[in-house]
């Protein structure tokens, strides 16, 4: 019975930016993921920040070899999520 729909505002442009940059939406994790760039954007982070922030973060190179999260999750959550992401990468290779 929970119902918590929020208004759609300014998400169309952000969605276009993410799609154009090669991100896909992960329904279970409520996040946009780019497996090649190893970057993850939480929906909350996308909604909470302006478009300019998203453009800057999309342009940031990730040369660490590790997954980069916007927002950074707790350590345990990061461990589980990264394991899922790596499984998915192996599957799609």
């Amino acid at each position, binding site marked *: *019975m929970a*119902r918590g729909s929020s*208004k759609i505002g300014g998400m169309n442009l952000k969605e276009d930016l993410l799609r154009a940059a090669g991100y896909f939406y992960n329904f279970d994790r*409520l996040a946009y993921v780019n497996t090649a760039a190893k970057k993850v954007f939480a929906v909350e982070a996308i909604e909470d920040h302006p478009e300019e922030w998203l453009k800057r973060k999309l342009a940031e190179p990730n040369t660490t070899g590790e997954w980069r999260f916007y927002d950074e999750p707790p*350590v*345990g959550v990061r461990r589980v999520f990264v394991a899922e992401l790596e499984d998915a990468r192996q599957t799609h290779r």
Partner: protein
Amino acid sequence: MPGRRTAEDYLRSEYVRLLPSLQRTSTAVETEVRHLLLPLTIELDPYERVIVKSRVKDCESAIDALRRRQPYGLFDPDRAEEYALVNLPDLVGVRVLAFPPRRLNAVRDALLPRLQTWVADHMPAASLDLDNVGFKYSGRWRDSDTFRSEIQIVSLLVGLFWEVEHAAVYKPSPNLRGIVRSVEMRQRVAAVESALNAFEDEFGRILDDASQAF
């Protein structure tokens, strides 16, 4: 050697402990809501509806709901014992569906005295063009309850649409759980809510015109 207990293990134990109280409170809330609405419901015109539904959130739905509130929809395995279903606002839920929408305020007025200490968290429309699509309150029905119950007051058409949407998205396909947050899906939901709202507004306008004609 047994494995480490997961957050889900702890939460299922909590649910079993809570269930008898949840069922008692669900019956109590629905009965009292029907009683409070009786003066209104016995005077409804034939085309009008006020429907009261109640439910106890089932165990896996409750765990899913709590999980969706966590970062990236995951329980932290390092804090497995720290999660609690009683943090959910709607383990017991009662939804009052009203048609036409002018009955919504009458329903709310009848229930408000019983909800003085409850927290209002009204339901925003998905569309920017609409205000709230319903009223929502959560709180403890009895002082002894360790959990909160929720009462929603919503138009009949929107409420029935939500039932279909919820059943389609959540129940049969766990892999669709997050679809409601996708931009495309929210746009479609906004369009449906706007259309239903337009229908109800027009119906209400015709009723007002008809009442002035006699």
